[in-house]
């Protein structure tokens, strides 16, 4: 069902925003939150679990170690020469290559998966965003029907919303 109206509540305090988020979650309303600061309690209130980025860092690290083994041991076998009285496959210096490729691959996959899961780059503003949400206000945007709007507005006001704007939801976001 297409949303008819978009309510954007703005909050001066982190705690008020958290109260609103908790109230909205209790009544099962879908919403978007804007925060001017990275706020851990807020993330907690939204109920996001642990970031999936960490899994990608682990996978990147493991693939880095495997690449390190492949590069060092593989090239040594390919060019089977004894140098400096050391065995052809001599682990002490290989550990360094493995370690550094682990960090490189892990770091790169951290950066890439962060951009992916943070949905960056975001070239157009997300519906409901206003510039103050990047400066000194917290914001919550809810898309709902006319019928629900009064109830949701009351919920946000009770939590301490300063101001609640009514906006038209944009066509592409109407699928939510």
């Amino acid at each position: 069902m297409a949303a008819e109206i978009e309510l954007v509540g703005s909050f001066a305090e982190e705690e008020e925003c958290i109260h609103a988020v908790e109230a909205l979650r209790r009544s099962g309303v879908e919403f978007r939150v804007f925060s001017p600061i990275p706020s851990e309690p807020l993330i907690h209130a939204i109920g996001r679990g642990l970031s999936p980025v960490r899994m990608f860092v682990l996978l990147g690290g493991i693939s880095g170690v495997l690449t390190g083994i492949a590069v060092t041991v593989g090239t040594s076998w390919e060019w089977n020469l004894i140098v400096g009285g050391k065995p052809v496959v001599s682990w002490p210096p290989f550990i360094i290559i493995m370690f550094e490729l682990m960090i490189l691959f892990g770091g790169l996959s951290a950066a890439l998966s962060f951009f992916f899961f943070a949905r960056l780059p975001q070239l157009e503003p997300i519906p409901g965003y206003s510039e103050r949400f990047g400066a000194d206000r917290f914001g919550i945007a809810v898309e709902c029907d006319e019928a629900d709007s009064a109830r949701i507005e009351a919920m946000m006001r009770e939590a301490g919303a300063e101001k609640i704007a009514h906006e038209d939801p944009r066509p592409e976001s109407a699928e939510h």
Partner: protein
Amino acid sequence: MTSQPQASREASRRPIAPQVVPGKADVCVSIPIVVVCSILTLIGVAGFIAGVMTETEPHAWEAFLCNFLFFFGVAQGGVVISAAFYLTQARWGGPGAYRLAESFYFFLPIAFVLFWVLFFGRAELWPWVTKPVAKNPTWLNTPFFFAREGFALLAMILLDFWFIRVSQRVDVRQWALSNDNIMMPPTAIRRLAPAVAITYAVVMSLIAFDLIMSLAPAWKSTLFGAFFFAGAFWSGIVAMALTAVILRGRLGAENLFTRDSVMHDLGKFTFAFSVFWAYTLFAQYIVIWYGDIPNETFFLVVRGALIGGPAGYTLYTPWMIPTWIVPVLVWVIPFTVLMGVKPKKTPAILGGVAFLGLIGMWLERYVLVVPSIEPRHIPFNWIEATITLGFLGIFGLCAIPGMKLTIAAAAAPQVLEAAER
């Protein structure tokens, strides 16, 4: 101020910081501990005397030297950890964390006295005492050796005591308590903390070069001093973690160490500096391994640590087993076990890792000292055991005053409130 309405509002909501600061309070020390430590000390003294009198090999002196290095390292490492807290303005545990790091400071003057016992065993320990090294007789000779070590230890310990006096001052403790502002630590401690850290690096390097490296005068490693003091720093951290785990159960329901966050911090410390120890170890190892120069590699060959030497095989020596147990206890176990959050917060696991870590550090000192004198067999017997117990006893007795302060600070309500945030 107006740019941070959140912070100022929160500050005004809180009660004004309490003026009474936890510190010197009368804490009863249980009599059994004192008795046990005294008995251990007596056993150690008896074992040392018997060892010196009866044995033809220098067992007693070797055991004395490596125990001196280990226990001095723990006590001195603890003081430097406290200095590192001030340098990084670590106020996470309130004054409790500082007292915990400084718990063993009273052993330091005793260590200075114990150091002079080594004077009588010099001919048994250091080969250059009887056979001067042709290359540098001006550096390695008995008068200059004991003069510079004595001076370095004295300077270090006096500085430590000055530092700890200031660290226990009311204004400094007050600073550690109030962690809701970005105030700098009081000036005196701000000047002393880096002085302690720098002196530590210099003095511990000197001790490592002179007391350990000159046991095998042909061997040189520039990084050895840093390796030694990184290990001593880490042994201080694991001693803190173990003490915290023990006190957690003993102090009653509510104390600083029942806080998950404090356990978590200690776990992170143990994890991080174990990696640093492994880093300095590997940084030395790789250079010696790569260069393959006989007067560098012999130090590793004797200890069975050189893998993939000439022709790819490793020579067997009895020292191999203790040598390879050390990195397992000091790095492999802390690294793998303490990787997650849960094990760091579980006292039994953190305490177990810390206990194994202390054994590992003791073994590291043993492996650094003894094979230089007795390369062919491991001479461990009752003499080593009794001397180690004796050192443990003295260390335990010396820890009592510091432990009283730790207990008083850890159970104080203001510290608990400060650690809440």
